[in-house]
């Protein structure tokens, strides 16, 4: 991977204020909103408090939206002919994808970092600094599967609106993935099969270690959460590969 290329790409992404609104400001805003909706969020939850729970959820959402939208731009860029320009340099397609994923993870780290920083300032608490670290790292690196999703959707729809479609889908996945609001009953049963469920569950794992937010909330084993994440990662890999092959064949 080429550091100069990644640096220029990163500057470019940070100039895109419209996109930053979605990937950084919105999760921050939603943390402030949801964090204060349930009576201050100071109640304890697992190894910390409810504020930490909401902070971890919103950081996960922000990181996943960031990787989705930025990896999605790889698809539209190649439609605009930048891919052809890159193909005239020694960089291989894998290098291009690698650079893109790297940039998307840096933005994801920035987005999740902003939510965590705000959380730390506004009363999110956990019993151990290791809970903070583990939760943050899981949010950033777990978000990489959504980079594959963004790339796959972007390549499939072949238009500028593709990123919008992919990011819009994330709101739906987040809602049905138990990210925004704790779901229960049939909704929760469905949620267990949606792509963000395993990811966000693992981001909250250091805090909750499987228990729900309330006393009667259902519990999940770490195995189920990992199985969800791995299954969706595989599906997104297949989607991305299929979309890339399809776009090459048509050229």
């Amino acid at each position, binding site marked *: 991977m080429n550091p*100069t290329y990644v640096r*220029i790409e990163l500057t470019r992404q940070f100039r*895109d204020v419209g996109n930053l609104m979605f990937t950084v400001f919105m999760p921050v805003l939603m943390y402030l909103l949801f964090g204060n909706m349930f009576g201050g969020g100071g109640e304890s939850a697992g190894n910390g408090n409810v504020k930490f729970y909401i902070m971890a959820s919103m950081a996960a959402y922000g990181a996943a939206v960031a990787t989705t939208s930025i990896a999605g731009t790889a698809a539209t860029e190649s439609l605009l*002919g*930048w891919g052809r*320009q890159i193909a*005239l*340099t*020694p*960089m291989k397609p894998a290098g291009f994808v690698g650079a893109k994923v790297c940039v998307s993870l840096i933005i994801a780290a920035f987005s999740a970092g902003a939510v965590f920083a705000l959380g730390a300032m506004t009363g999110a608490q956990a019993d151990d600094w290791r809970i903070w670290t583990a939760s943050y790292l899981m949010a950033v690196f777990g978000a990489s599967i959504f980079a594959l999703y963004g790339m796959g959707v972007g390549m499939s729809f072949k238009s500028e609106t593709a990123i919008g479609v992919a990011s819009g889908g994330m709101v739906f996945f987040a809602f049905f993935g138990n990210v925004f609001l704790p779901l229960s009953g049939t909704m929760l049963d469905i949620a267990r099969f949606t792509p963000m469920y395993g990811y966000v569950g693992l981001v909250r794992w250091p805090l909750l270690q499987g228990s729900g937010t309330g006393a009667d909330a259902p519990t999940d084993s770490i195995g189920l959460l990992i199985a969800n994440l791995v299954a969706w990662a595989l599906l997104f890999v297949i989607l991305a590969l299929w979309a890339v092959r399809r776009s090459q064949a048509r050229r």
Partner: protein
Amino acid sequence: MDIISPQRIEPAATPSAQRLALKLEKVRKSFHTNQGPLEAVAGIDLSVGTGEIVAFLGPNGAGKTTTIDMMLGLTAPTSGTITVFGKSPRAAVEAGEVSAVLQTGGLLRDLTVRETVTAIAALHGAQDRIATVMERTDIMSLAKRKVSKCSGGEQQRLKFALALLPDPRLLILDEPTAGMDVAARHGFWETMRQDALEGRTVIFATHYLEEAQDFAERTVLIGKGKVLADGPTAKLRSMTGGRVVSATLPIGSPTAVAISALEQLDQVSSVRLKGQRIQVTGPDSDAAARMLLGQLAATDLEITAPTLDAAFMELTGENS
């Protein structure tokens, strides 16, 4: 006339004697479309020696861009082989020996000119050439401008700068002046001329006959995915049926006599009459003009160079 033969009329240079820059052997490429298979390139053989400047002339849909894509390793041929300096196209690209200005797109609109050059230079490991290349293509003054704010001609110069970064021995230009106004087009070719003096091999696709005429010693005429003619550009010009001389005959003069007199001239291939307007086609426009203005007392004389369309009709035998 025997000009329809796709063989080389007369070699512009002798590539076999020099080192070969590019060799295409029986190259074919077909695509699967909704309407069934489409053969974009239907068997092209071509050799280009180092230092040659070759024009790829043909109308839209002739297979020029597909052929160029294969020379650059952007698409693989369905059959046949392509070598660039004895290597595969992709290996030549990786070695920085071949580079190109592609026809459409290829730039990120929200990067500045300098950022674009720096990013591509980094991928080539050619950071030391950034200043040279930007000065050469006259984009230094645009360095801080966003690509989206650059005119078509400026974007084309930027793409030219990117192509020069690896210091390629073979430079391929796909319709480099498409969408430029006359002044920008002249400016572009002026830059190209200076560059050509450095002894690069240049292949450029165009559908402007004038560009081939002004710039290339050798022209390869492409139509329907095949090489229709390949030879010195000057030769091609005469092959295309020469210039058209048209003039208005004085009212009342016997047109039949005028037609037969013009047809008697050497090298006149056709004479057509529409009302009082007479059209003479042939390589020797001077003799026809002299006769029209003198002996026949015609007025409103016009001499036009052959258009590419005319050349194609002539070469493909699709006379209307």
